[in-house]
């Protein structure tokens, strides 16, 4: 059971953001505790990615506040997010296709030699180490990531988040491109990271997966938060009903 008595790792309060006329996120509040996985559910275009992009620094919210460890923070860009140990695996897998796995893993945080030059050999060695753990079958260390399969690309993105010892991890549909075996590996990884005390936001369309991996599930529709529920207190049908009808289940509504 997750201990929710202390200060939350992340608290997003009353976040709103619009694109042109569209309210992509409309007064959404959500929090995350250490060692907790919070699932974000909702139909396509519900605003899930947009909400977490405010936390990862890709977007700046129009209104609302973000607290990390109880302190109000201002996240203007991805660098600010990293400074707060927030790592993100984007739905679109933000990788530079022309660079190899190691260069992508360390992009923006290269290892350097004492003279300040990038140390490719050291970065490749570290990359091999982490892949030993995440994806032992991976061999294409010298190839640009454009030559990798969808799942291999995903493991590069995941490796990046894990390597830099995030405290807060955002995973936007991390298993969308994965086969069953790789999906299981990511699930195990999530559980391991959870044990290490990370807080994870997991966006996923698979309600079974959310029920299995998450402690709580937040459901969004048309930019609004329908509700946050304890996954143990709802069935997958309840979750589906929330996504489709946009209402909390009867037995929790009160």
């Amino acid at each position, binding site marked *: 059971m997750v201990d929710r008595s202390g200060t939350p790792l992340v608290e997003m309060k009353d976040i709103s953001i619009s694109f042109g006329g569209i309210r992509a996120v409309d007064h959404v509040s959500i929090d995350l505790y250490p060692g907790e996985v919070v699932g974000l559910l909702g139909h396509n275009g519900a605003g899930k990615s947009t909400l977490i992009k405010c936390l990862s620094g890709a977007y700046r919210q129009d209104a609302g506040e973000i607290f990390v460890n109880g302190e109000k923070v201002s996240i203007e*860009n991805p*660098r600010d997010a990293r400074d707060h140990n927030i790592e993100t695996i*984007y739905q679109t897998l*933000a*990788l*530079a296709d*022309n*660079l190899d796995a190691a260069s992508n893993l360390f992009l923006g*945080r290269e290892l350097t030699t004492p003279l300040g030059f990038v140390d490719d050999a050291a970065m490749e060695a570290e990359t091999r180490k982490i892949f030993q753990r995440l994806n032992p079958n991976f061999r294409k260390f010298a190839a640009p990531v*454009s030559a990798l399969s969808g799942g291999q690309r995903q493991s590069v993105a995941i490796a990046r988040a894990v390597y830099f010892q995030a405290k807060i991890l955002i995973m936007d549909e991390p298993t969308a491109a994965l086969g069953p075996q790789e999906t299981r590996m990511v699930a195990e990884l999530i559980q391991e990271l959870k044990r290490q005390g990370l807080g994870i936001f997991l966006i996923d369309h698979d309600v079974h997966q959310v029920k299995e991996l998450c402690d709580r599930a937040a459901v969004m529709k048309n930019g609004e938060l329908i509700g946050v529920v304890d996954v143990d207190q709802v069935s997958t049908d309840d979750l589906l009903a929330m996504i489709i009808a946009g209402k909390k289940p009867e037995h929790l509504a009160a």
Partner: protein
Amino acid sequence: MADASASTGQSQRKSFFQTLELDTRLLGMIGAFAVVCIMFNLLTDGRFLTPRNIFNLTIQTVSVAIMATGMVFVIVTRHIDLSVGSLLATCSAMMAMAQTQVLPGMGFELNSPIIAPIAILVGVLTGAIVGAFQGYIIGYLGVPAFIVTLGGLLVWRNVAWYLTTGQTIGPLNDTFTLLGGISGTMGELGSWILGVIAVVAAGFAIVSARRARIRHEFPVKPMWAEFALMLVAAVLILGFVWILNSYDVPSRVLAQRFEASGTTMPEGYTEGYGVPYSVLLLIAVAVVMTIVARRTRLGRYIFATGGNPDAAELSGINTRLLTVKVFAIMGVLCALAGLVASARLSFHSNDIGTLDELRVIAAAVIGGTALSGGMGTIYGAILGALIMQSLQSGMAMVGVDAPFQNIVVGAVLVLAVLVDIIYRKRTGAA
């Protein structure tokens, strides 16, 4: 049967090159260059591949090649710079005016030793500031590079005109003109020393790369492949020095030199020109730019941004500032190219650098820089510049009419891109 043997032969050759880890596209370019040279050599009854012509070809290539290395960065980040020829003119005008009007006006003699360094500094600063300014408009204000530099093409050409009131400015300072080519060379001994240093440096680079791989327990090439590479590098470097050393200074010039120093020239005395200082400058630029591209964060970010601008941004790279830096580098290189171009003429002319934007972009593209961004090499761009210049000089030597020369150059540019697209499709490189 014939087919089968041909294909095994091919696969063996392939694995041979793979063992050497040589870039097949580089080999292709070298092959194209060799074909051009041999063809013109046959058409000119051997006049194309003489030390004299190779020397001239080299010094004619320097200015465009210097700018082409910067254009690689510009195109890799998915931009373009159409203003390089004009910016070269503005920098050249600034340097010419500084050394002939402004500094003499402040009481310095035209040939005082302080003139050349100050003039060069003025030129480099001009290039950096103008480049950074254009980069700012592109990166921070969001005007496409195509438009900003198309405007710049007109603006800087005419700023140069305004600065010099359209006049030819010269003669230039003696030290300054040393960087023009034939007016400043290292001599035979100096060139051999340079060649040996270059061979040692190449050997050191190969060895240290191998050590780094062994230290991290990565697979390495077989020793024979390393030695073969080292041998090829040594032969190329020393061969190049030998050719430039074989181009003799005319005895008339030598006699004058002896006369000036108050002695008479010994009978049968000869001396080769050796490596021009302008080529030394190009080599320095090439080394620095290659190190920037491969070994620095700046270079890594340039390629990452070209590969996927969004990914670069999300990885915390300040892509706007990066744009400013890339265009500032381009500006500095335009200034250095302007230095070499005006020093070669020994004056600044109003039309200096005209149409260079075309040559520079062509050199980068022929050298394998992908217009879709994210891909390109410094050595490729220099080789591209050399191929362009060989075509142009070769056609002039054969006596092809001027309009046809330009038609061929334009067609070659398009053809090179087409070949590149087909090559990338075949090899599966995006």
